[in-house]
C-alpha cells in the first residue's frame, strides 16, 4: 500500500518535468507558427530587415548572428576547454588541482549578467582600443561566450578522460611511449565521445545565452560584414523587443523563440547517441 502511494508520488514528480516541456512546446508553437504563416515563411526566415514599425519581420540577420557568435565561441572555447580538461585530468599536480577545480566550478556559477558587466567594462574597451570601432562586436560576444562555455567543456572533458580505463594508459607506457604520447594517443581518443558531448552542451549554452550577449554585441539587426561589427542574436532579438511589442510584433518574437527552440532541440538530438561516455 505504502509502496503504491510512494510510487504515485515519484511518478507525479517525474511527470511535472514532462508536462512543463510539453506546455512550453504548445505555447511556443501555437503562438509562433501562425505568426510565421502570417508574415510568410520565406520573408520571415530569409528576410534581411527587421523593422517592426514598417511590418518587416526578417530574422535572417539574427539567425546568422547566433551562428557567427556561437561559431566564434566554439573556435575560442573548445580548444581551450578541451586542453584544460586534459590538463586537469592527466597533467595537473594535485595542489594546483585543488585551486583549479573550484575555480572552474565557480566560473560555471557566475550569473550571466556579471559576465556581461565584465564584457562592458573590460572587453569592449579592449576591443575598441585594439581594433577600433565601438568595441561591441561579434568578436567581443564570442570571447564572452567562450568564457561562459569553458566550465561545461572543461568539466565534461575532464570527467570523460578520467573515466578511461587505466590499462590503456599503462599499455601505452609499457610500449615505451612518454606520458604525453600515452595521454594524447591512447587515453584521449577513448574519451572522444564524452568530449564531443561536452562540446555540444557548450554549443547549446552559447546559442541560448542572452544577457551577456545583449550587453556586448551591439544588437544591430543587420547582417554583419566582419567580426568587428555589431550583431544581434536570436535571443537578443527576443529580449530587446519583448518589453514593448504587441500583436504581430509580439508573435513574431515568439516565432523567433520557436527557431531558437528548434536549434537547441537539434543540438540536443545530435549529442544524445554519444552522451554516455562512461558507459562501458
Amino acid at each position, binding site marked *: 500500500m505504502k509502496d503504491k502511494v510512494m510510487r504515485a508520488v515519484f511518478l507525479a514528480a517525474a511527470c511535472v518535468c514532462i508536462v512543463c516541456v510539453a506546455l512550453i512546446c504548445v505555447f511556443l508553437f501555437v503562438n509562433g507558427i501562425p505568426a510565421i504563416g502570417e508574415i510568410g515563411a520565406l520573408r520571415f526566415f530569409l528576410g534581411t530587415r527587421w523593422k517592426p514599425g514598417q511590418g518587416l519581420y526578417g530574422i535572417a540577420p539574427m539567425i546568422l548572428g547566433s551562428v557567427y557568435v556561437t561559431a566564434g565561441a566554439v573556435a575560442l572555447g573548445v580548444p581551450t576547454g578541451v586542453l584544460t580538461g586534459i590538463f586537469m585530468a592527466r597533467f595537473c599536480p594535485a595542489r594546483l588541482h585543488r585551486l583549479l577545480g573550484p575555480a572552474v566550478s565557480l566560473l560555471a556559477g557566475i550569473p550571466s549578467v556579471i559576465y556581461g558587466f565584465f564584457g562592458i567594462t573590460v572587453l569592449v574597451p579592449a576591443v575598441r582600443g585594439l581594433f577600433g570601432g565601438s568595441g561591441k562586436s561579434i568578436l567581443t560576444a564570442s570571447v564572452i561566450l567562450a568564457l561562459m562555455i569553458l566550465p561545461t567543456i572543461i568539466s565534461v572533458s575532464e570527467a570523460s578522460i578520467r573515466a578511461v*580505463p587505466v*590499462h*590503456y594508459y*599503462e*599499455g*601505452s*607506457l*609499457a*610500449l*615505451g*611511449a*612518454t606520458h604525453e*604520447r600515452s595521454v594524447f*594517443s*591512447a587515453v584521449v*581518443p*577513448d574519451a572522444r565521445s564524452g568530449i564531443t558531448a561536452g562540446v555540444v552542451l557548450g554549443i547549446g549554452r552559447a546559442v541560448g545565452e542572452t544577457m551577456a550577449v545583449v550587453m556586448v554585441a551591439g544588437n544591430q539587426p543587420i547582417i554583419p560584414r566582419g567580426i568587428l561589427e555589431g550583431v544581434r542574436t536570436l535571443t537578443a532579438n527576443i529580449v530587446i523587443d519583448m518589453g514593448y511589442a504587441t500583436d504581430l510584433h509580439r508573435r513574431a518574437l515568439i516565432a523567433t523563440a520557436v527557431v531558437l527552440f528548434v536549434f537547441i532541440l537539434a543540438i540536443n538530438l545530435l549529442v544524445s547517441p554519444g552522451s554516455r561516455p562512461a558507459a562501458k
Partner: protein
Amino acid sequence: MGAEIEISNLSVYYGAVRALTDVSLNIPEHGITAFIGPSGCGKSTLLKTINRMNDLVEGFRAEGGVTVGGRDVYGGIDVTQLRKRVGMVFQKPNPFPMSIFDNVAYGPRTHGVRARAKLEAAVEKSLRDAAIWDEVKDRLRRSALSLSGGQQQRLCIARALAVGPQALLLDEPTSALDPISTSKIEDLVTQLKAEYTIVIVTHNMQQAARISDRTAFFLLGELIEHGATEELFSMPSQKKTEDYITGRFG
C-alpha cells in the same frame, strides 16, 4: 647488447609497506622464467620493477640493483628506452580502442617510424610472430575490440613485439582466458623464447611446469627458491616450496 636480467639484493617498498625483501635472482637470456607464489607474494611487484611500471604507484621505492643487459634500470636510464627493450603484456588483454593495424603500429609510430611500407612490414611481421596473422589479415582495419579475449591477448603480444624488445614480461597473461586460448598463448610463448628473454608471472603451477625453463617461488615478499623448473617441481630444496607445489596452501 644482451638481455640478461640481474636482480641483486632488491627490496621494494610501497610507502611504509615492504613488498619485496632482499631478492637476488639471475634471469638468463633466451629462456622462460616463471614467477610463482600465492597472491600478494610480490611476484608481480618484481615483474613491474624490471620495466619500472611501478613508478606509477605512489610511494614506490626500490633499494638494491636491477640490471637489464648490464645496464642499471634505476640509474639514470631513459625509461622509454628501457620499456622499448623490455616489453610487457598485462593480465587483462588491453588493446587500444582503435584498429588492429593501429594497435600494432602504435609502438613503431611512437618510436618514430612514419613510412607506410615500413609500418606495414612491421605490423605483418609482429602479427605473424604472435601467431595471429592468419586470423586477422583480412580485417586489419577493424576495431581490435571486436576480437575474442584470446585473440586480443595475442594482439597485445604482437603489439609488444612490434617495438623490437629483447625481453618480454608477461603478467599472468592467461588468467582471463579460456583453456584453448591459454594453450595457444603457451605455444606462442614457447616459440618466442628462442629470440626473447621471457619472464612470466603465473598463478597456475601446471603452466609454470609446462612452459618454463626456470622457476622462482616467492612467499610474502621473499624469494624462497629458484632453479631449473624440473628440479624445483620434482625435488624442491625448501619445505615451503614443497608445501606450495603439492597444494598444501596457496
